């Protein structure tokens, strides 16, 4: 026991020294957080969506996830309960009552909103999440430690965790088909949507298109492009025929998703000035306290 303790102490001391040395050499300061002006986005027109759930099937197929045959997605009974994306489905469609046409409910596809200033990217302890130039917020399997802070941070509660896996559990969320788009493909859901309720294009163009639709059909749309300003702007935008609160969209402000946490963080750590000042101040105090009474020291 005694030996073990001693070894542990030595090991810890060595580890600290080693870590300090390595940090300086290999680490880099933060994850990629690009906010390219010509990034792509998707405009989801919930008044056009028919709730066929082909996007759910296409998403699973494109990501190599297990899925029943596409015919089974015609079952509209799933709409009786609200669903959220999880480790088995990166996107789900929910239905909400349409008072004007009870036969045709509003159907809303849910997935990662791909924020311009994502809270998850800001939060991730190891920078496993990053915002790419093409708009995608992607997750890096090689970095993630599974702390789930991204799930705490996400204002839309989108990232999901593989709670049932002991080894290499993943944080799962829509990756905007990052791999497919590398080969110049469309996101799988956009490609499969039979009515193009999902319009893929440059975000700025999509904002224009969305505003135009609202202007032209005021009787069809509420005058609100969700995601244009929410949490500083998301790359996925939504149009709806009813108030977004009725479609269970969270009511969010215009300030970027990480909120004040980054300012606080950088305030505390502004070029290490506050910690170093505190260190110096305490050292001074210690020196004064030790010498003032002129007693024997420690």
């Amino acid at each position, binding site marked *: *026991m005694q*030996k073990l*303790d*001693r070894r542990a*102490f030595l090991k810890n001391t060595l580890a600290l020294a080693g870590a300090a040395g*390595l940090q300086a050499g*290999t*680490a880099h*300061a*933060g994850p990629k957080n690009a906010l390219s002006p010509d990034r792509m986005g998707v405009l989801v027109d919930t008044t056009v969506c028919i709730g066929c759930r082909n996007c759910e099937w296409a998403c699973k197929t494109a990501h190599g996830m297990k899925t029943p045959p596409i015919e089974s997605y015609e079952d509209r009974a799933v709409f009786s309960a*609200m669903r*959220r994306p*999880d480790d088995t489905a990166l996107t789900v469609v929910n239905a909400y009552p349409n008072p004007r046409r009870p036969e045709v409910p509003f159907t809303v596809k849910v997935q990662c909103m791909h924020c311009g200033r994502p809270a998850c*990217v*800001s939060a*991730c*302890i*190891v*920078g*496993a999440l990053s915002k790419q130039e093409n708009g995608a917020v992607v997750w890096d399997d090689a*970095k*993630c*430690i*599974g*702390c*789930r*802070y991204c*799930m*705490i*941070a996400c*204002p*839309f*509660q989108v*990232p999901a*965790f593989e*709670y*049932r896996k*002991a080894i290499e*559990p993943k944080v799962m969320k829509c990756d905007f088909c990052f791999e497919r788009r590398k080969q110049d493909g469309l996101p799988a859901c956009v490609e499969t949507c039979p009515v193009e309720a999902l319009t893929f294009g440059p975000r700025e163009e999509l904002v224009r298109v969305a505003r135009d639709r609202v202007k032209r059909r005021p009787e069809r749309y509420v005058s609100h492009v969700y995601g244009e300003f929410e949490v500083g702007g998301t790359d996925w935008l939504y149009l709806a025929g009813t108030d977004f609160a009725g479609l*269970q969209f969270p009511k*969010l*402000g215009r300030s970027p998703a*990480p*909120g*004040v*946490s980054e300012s*606080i*963080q*950088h305030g*505390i*750590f502004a070029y290490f000035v506050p910690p170093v000042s*505190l*260190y110096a101040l*305490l*050292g001074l*105090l*210690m020196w004064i*306290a030790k010498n003032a009474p002129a*007693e024997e020291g*420690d």
Partner: protein
Amino acid sequence: MDHYSRPAPIVRPFLTPGVIALIVLAVNGLVFLAGRLLFGIGAVTNLDNQHPWGIWIGLDVASGVALAAGGFTTAALAHVMHREEYHAVVRPALLTALLGYTFVALGVAMDIGRWYSIWHPLFMWNGNSALFEVGICVVIYVHVLYIEFLPAVAERFIGRVALPGPLARLNGPVDAALRLMDRGLSKTMFVFIIAGVVLSTLHQSSLGTLMVIAGPKMHPLWQTPILPLLFLLSAVATGFPMVIVESLLASRSLGLKPEMAVLSRLAGMAAALLGVYLAFKIGDMFVRETFVHLRRLDTASVMFMAEVLLGVVLPLRMLLSPQVRRSPGLLFVAALLVVLGTALNRVNNFIVAYTPPYSFRSYVPSLGEVSVTVGFIALLVLVYRAAVMIFPVISLPDRSLSPREKYTIRA
């Protein structure tokens, strides 16, 4: 240094009925922990995609860090302020902090999905992340704590190194190394002590920043941009009460006369610090006008009132009374209220206040989660007991050593 000797290892039998009960709890926790390691977090916990963090973070980690604040507050008082009269409480507080942080690290490792990747933050940095800062500070601080504890190790073994069997011929060199280290440390210890205080200030506050990013998902009673300040102030205010609770428990179980002179002075300072914390807490509530949420009777308002009234206001009132500060029993109650109040504050911030936008059910910790948490606490107490029996931690009075009494010391 009047009638207290230098700290010395306690000589007692290790196994007592209380210890056996702790071992049972610890083993029970380890069984559930094995379940988590073999079948994943979901197999043992009630966590889901809406409630990613449970008591393993809210209690084991957040409260653990707050309650280990005694380590840096006493270090600041005794070493930085150079108040020699408090040196007797420094080592127990240091050991509590050291073990507390070690178990915090263990708790974090078990809560994260890929425990074997826990070293990633050392090499993969994200300067924007409050969690990254907490992580790095805690890692460094744990090492600082171990270094601060090294003199106790040196004290115990210098001249007494006795390695078994063939290693016995290393006795000489090890002894020499220990002496060298002791000499070196006594000259440089101030570096580590100040570093410990700075690191604690940083990560105690950053622990508060953690939940700021949850934004509107956090109940407005708790969500405030000054969360880091509130966390720091409450941690500082909890440091001394934690030392008081510990010291009173130790003296009681060892049958010693409580060192009320030191403790009531600590209590006075604790009252002042608690007052500052309360002022900021209430001030924040009025500035953001969140008191409107107290008009409704729900879980949030009840928990908030419990935290503030029972955990801050009541003990503050008690600590302000000289009578309470002089009475070991009342002082123990007041200090315990502060400790529990801060623990409740951390649980409130991390669990009660967290209201996800799409909740299918509310989070209640599972049997497995509670078992693991209790098991970790039991393990911590056991290790603490073992440590005070091996190393010179607790200062004993010169005469009044009563070996009949059995004792337990809780962290």
